[in-house]
């Protein structure tokens, strides 16, 4: 993350800690999508993901005054709350990908219905493949390749060494490749 962006983010965080709701809103807007995506992959359904992300944001909101800006992205803070919330509630993944409304939230503009359907099928396949990974692999793959967190940030969130995070990445990618190959062959 660039220094300028970090500086702006730090200012936003300070305002939010002082009760500035608009600053909170801006932070949420910034982190909403990656956080939702993480929760969605972890719990497996849109409904659960929507319920959980609301809970996560409320928790983060109520405890935000305790947040200390250390130079890392505050996304790690939200991820930690999300991860703990998922674990606490013992949510089980629901494999309900047959539902048409599961992965269809953003169709590309100007896509034909055929193209949209193909994209949707690819997304469903990818979601299924990721769900077959171990939880640790999922955490790392989602945080790294969807949300762009650094290995250091992921290591902090997961409480692991950076080397272990790198190993999880390579192992997860290999597993994902194999799973996708199998699904393509079916």
């Amino acid at each position, binding site marked *: 993350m660039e220094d300028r962006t970090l500086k702006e983010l730090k200012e936003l965080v300070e305002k939010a800690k002082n009760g500035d709701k608009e600053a909170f*809103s801006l932070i949420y807007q910034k982190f*909403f999508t990656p956080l939702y*995506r993480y929760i969605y992959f972890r719990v497996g359904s849109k409904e659960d993901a929507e319920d959980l992300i609301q809970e996560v944001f409320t928790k983060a909101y109520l405890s935000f005054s305790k947040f200390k800006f250390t130079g890392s992205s505050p996304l790690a803070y939200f991820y930690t709350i999300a991860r703990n919330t998922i674990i606490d509630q013992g949510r089980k993944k629901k494999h309900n990908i047959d539902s048409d409304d599961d992965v269809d939230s953003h169709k590309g503009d100007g896509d034909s219905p055929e193209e949209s359907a193909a994209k949707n099928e*690819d997304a469903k396949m990818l979601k299924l493949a990721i769900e077959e990974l171990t939880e640790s692999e999922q955490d790392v793959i989602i945080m790294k390749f969807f949300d762009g967190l650094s290995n250091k940030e992921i290591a902090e969130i997961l409480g692991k060494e950076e080397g272990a995070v790198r*190993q999880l990445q*390579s192992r997860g990618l*290999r597993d994902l*490749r194999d799973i996708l190959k199998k699904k393509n062959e079916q």
Partner: protein
Amino acid sequence: MADALRLKDEGKSLRQIAAIFPENEKEIEELFGVVAFMKSKKDEFAPSRSLLGRILQELPESEPAKLESLEKKALISEQMEANNSRQFVIIDNESEAAGGEVNVETIPKNNSASQKTSLKVWDYFHNFKLAPVMAVVVVILVAGVSSYEIWGKKGASEQPPVAQSSLLKFAAVASKPTTMAGALDNVLNSINQDLNNETSLFDLGTADANLVTFDKEALNGLTNTYNENSL
């Protein structure tokens, strides 16, 4: 593969990485292909646009503890404006956490000059701006008290009695005429008188020397008083 991913993080291209690990080139291409595939699909997993607005609407108005503090600050501020008073606010965290009252001490702001001055002086002290000056003042005062004590003690017992009157005696002796005329007695008397005068002058000199010694001692006393370790 972990090393290949690390190089990718460092900004190396697929071609560069494949050149470093030629024996794993095929696998590296496949895995980087998976990464590219995931990145191309990430927007497919975005939340509905209305969800964020809904969550923000349903959030509490503000963080409770913070809100409570802000409300109290606003209340105190309003009271200050209303009462025209200077307020010192002591926030008891425990009572605040328990939802208790915040202790507020109110001091009338009568804007008197003395109050302002004392506050300013206190602020000045508080900021340690006057500390060096005050240290010097204290040293001078202590030195003055010590020298006074030395003079008092020595003045009573050790001060030579001749010291105070030595100049007067010298003037009296010097003004007496020496007569050498007439009889032997007169001569002897005159000699004796001169001897007495010389003795007196010698005494005066001794008295002055004692006075100088005394002054030196007094100065030594002052020097000792300035010793910072004794303060």
